[in-house]
């Protein structure tokens, strides 16, 4: 079927772009390059993929087609057969329908952002490969292929965080991200191995697995669920594996927008949703996931209120929003979580790209304390970012309102009130830190800052995404507002639904909105006309601005003992014992051969003596034995 072949082309075009770019990058000198050709190659792959993704999503939405494409059999054992197969159902196509289009917008933005960078070709090679692996992750028809994509986006994230590799701190940040992700990947890998061990015989694709979950004992089912969630924790930056995400902002801003906000970090949410039939069978693990999500959201929001790095604020905000998604997934509603993923990718990409534009305009200044009064100088950017900020704060009618409010409603109606209150408080904090961010940058003290003009190529993608930020929320209009939750219906996952009266629903919305408006008002009072900077005296603010000292604790708890152990192993075991042993073996042979080489000393007399000695021994034999 032609349309199933299209799945292959979604993967193929970005990969082809990456390959052609790398070949050209190798063989054509920088001065001889045609800028248009390189620009075209950089964005062509992902644009084609975006068009195909949207077409397939439309087909699926209207005709409910599921697409499958088997490329080849990867592994064929007696007990386990793994196909290199792609599958696109509603869930995958939903992911594709924002990954590739948002990706395209960010690619265009990156063209402008990376124009003056000397290794922009390398950047786009990585970016295209990232899109390839992300699509592979989303399209994988079995956990193994998904894991391939999962690792691929991990390595691309590593390479892009460390993109400016001449700065040592960037390399450290990249290593941190990579190593923490390894811990998560260990969990994920163990989980899919256990799945293969228990039900691999009955087929290893997602459909085959979902029919066989009931065969696993409850204990192992819980174990697998927790291990899979550990994988999601690493990728989606939840407690305790979140510390890499703020440091990952060392990469170029388009990377932060695409990988560390819109797509890769949501892979964890996607994975849990992909295993939704498994997770819906283990409610205790679900509650655990919800609490992890809740505390991650709260912690990140608290830290974000005291952070001054423009990109780190957004990084913590991303982590906080991911916390919301896990709350929803943990308590059983996957489609709300995915809808939040969907809307979040639009407004967070807008915010990041806006932040990137500001950073470029201010000559690589990232501290919001040194910004201010930018509203008049970049009005277009201000309105775009305002839309995104209102959206992330969940103000009607922006998209964040629809997705976040659905989650809040679900949390409340599921009866886990602690989680609900944490979510409510986090929502308050979200609005507070987002408007702190806006006021700090665009208003605050009246100072004159020199601003470089922002190119049109940069503004257009931001504008497009901010426009979508306004409208995509209506895809999942709740019943209360006259909609029918089409998005959730389309996905048709194992959602748990609670039905509450409209009165409760309205009152929840009102409470939430009142809190948010209060937060915005507080932020306005505090930061609109900021004359002096915030004082850092109190213990709490010190604690917050140092991110709860988590990095330090991790450092003392894990890194230093491991370092000591490695030093011990290096000095005592390796150099002291193994090296010595091997050296003494080698030198021993040399010593022994030196002993023997005395016989080959070139002395004629000795040679004669030895040959004479042979004759002599024969004579002694005759004398003693024969006579």
């Amino acid at each position, binding site marked *: 079927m032609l349309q199933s072949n299209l799945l292959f082309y979604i993967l193929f075009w970005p990969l082809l772009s990456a390959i052609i770019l790398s070949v050209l990058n190798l063989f054509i000198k920088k001065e001889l390059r045609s800028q248009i050709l390189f620009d075209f190659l950089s964005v062509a792959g992902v644009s084609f993929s975006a068009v195909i993704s949207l077409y397939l999503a439309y087909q699926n939405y209207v005709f409910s087609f599921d697409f499958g494409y088997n490329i080849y059999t990867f592994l064929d054992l007696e007990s386990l057969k793994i196909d290199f197969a792609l599958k696109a159902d509603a869930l995958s196509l939903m992911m594709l329908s924002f990954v590739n289009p948002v990706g395209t917008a960010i690619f265009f933005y990156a063209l402008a952002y990376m124009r003056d960078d000397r290794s922009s070709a390398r950047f786009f090679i990585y970016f295209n490969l990232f899109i390839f692996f992300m699509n592979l992750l989303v399209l994988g028809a079995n956990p193994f292929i998904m894991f391939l994509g999962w690792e691929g986006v991990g390595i691309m994230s590593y390479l892009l965080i460390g993109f400016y590799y001449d700065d040592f701190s960037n390399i450290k940040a990249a290593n941190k991200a990579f190593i923490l992700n390894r811990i998560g990947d260990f969990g994920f890998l163990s989980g899919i191995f256990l799945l293969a061990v228990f039900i691999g015989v009955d087929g290893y694709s997602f459909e085959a697995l979902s029919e066989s979950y009931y065969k696993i004992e409850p204990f192992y089912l819980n174990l697998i669920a927790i291990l899979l969630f550990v994988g999601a924790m690493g990728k989606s930056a939840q407690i305790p594996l979140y510390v890499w995400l703020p440091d990952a902002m060392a990469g170029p801003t388009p990377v932060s927008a695409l990988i560390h906000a819109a797509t890769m970090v949501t892979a964890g949410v996607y994975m849990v949703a992909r295993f939704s039939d498994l997770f819906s069978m283990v409610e205790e693990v679900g509650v655990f996931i919800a609490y992890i999500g809740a505390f991650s959201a709260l912690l990140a929001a608290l830290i974000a209120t005291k952070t001054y790095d423009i990109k780190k604020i957004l990084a913590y905000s991303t982590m906080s929003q991911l916390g919301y998604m896990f709350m929803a997934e943990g308590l059983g509603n996957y489609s709300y979580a995915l809808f939040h993923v969907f809307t979040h990718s639009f407004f967070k990409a807008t915010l990041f790209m806006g932040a990137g534009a500001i950073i470029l305009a201010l000559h690589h200044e990232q501290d919001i304390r040194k910004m201010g009064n930018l509203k008049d100088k970049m009005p277009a950017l201000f309105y775009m970012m305002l839309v995104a900020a209102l959206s992330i704060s969940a103000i009607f009618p922006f998209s964040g309102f629809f997705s976040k409010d659905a989650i809040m409603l679900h949390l409340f109606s599921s009866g886990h009130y602690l989680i609900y209150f944490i979510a409510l408080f986090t929502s308050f904090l979200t609005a507070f830190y987002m408007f702190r961010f806006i006021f700090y940058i665009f208003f605050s003290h009246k100072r004159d800052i020199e601003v470089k003009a922002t190119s049109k190529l940069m503004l257009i993608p931001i504008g497009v995404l901010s426009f979508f930020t306004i409208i995509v929320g209506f895809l999942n209009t709740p019943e209360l507002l006259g909609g029918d939750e089409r998005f959730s219906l389309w996905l048709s996952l194992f959602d748990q639904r609670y039905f509450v009266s409209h009165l409760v629903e309205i009152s929840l919305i009102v409470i939430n909105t009142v809190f948010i408006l209060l937060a915005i008002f507080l932020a306005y009072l505090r930061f609109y006309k900021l004359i002096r900077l915030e004082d850092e005296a109190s213990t709490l603010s010190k604690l917050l601005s140092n991110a709860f000292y988590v990095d330090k604790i991790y450092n003392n708890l894990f890194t230093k003992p491991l370092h000591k152990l490695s030093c011990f192993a290096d000095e005592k075991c390796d150099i002291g014992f193994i090296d010595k042993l091997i050296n003494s073996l080698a030198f021993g042979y040399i010593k022994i051969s030196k002993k023997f080489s005395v016989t080959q000393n070139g002395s004629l007399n000795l040679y004669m003596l030895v040959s004479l000695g042979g004759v*002599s021994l024969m*004579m002694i034999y005759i004398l003693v034995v024969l006579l």
Partner: protein
Amino acid sequence: MLSNMIFIILATNLLISSFVMISTKRVIDSALSMLIALLSIAGIYATLQSSFMFITQIIIYAGAILSLVIFIIMFLNIKDKNLPHEPHKTRDMILTSLVVFPITAVLIYFIKLSDFSNLNEKTTSSIGKVGLELYQNYVLPFELISILLLISLVGSITLARKEKDV
């Protein structure tokens, strides 16, 4: 009885001079004691009544070969400091004697064991008889030796010629 006495004197002389020959440090001493040894051997040929070998020994060995050796020693004008440095000469010789001893012992033991009872008395071998023997039965080897001598002549000239500067 007299011939026995002469044999013993000659044999003692031969062995002592040979020993001196292999053990002296200077080459010229060694060459001169070899001259004595060669003359003693000529005397032993005389006691065997082999007149042709007696003459040959004196003319070729003592006269030609040894004078050539002495000529070379003089020609090279070897100084004491150019002599080989042999700090362990005594030790080496004793060691070698120990190694050679079993061979000598076995050979002498076999000679003692052998029975030579059907011996003739010593007979005089005249030069004429030797000449006849040589030209009747051993013509080919005799002629081949002339070729050998020619080759060694050419070879020694080639070897001793000064090498051209490359």
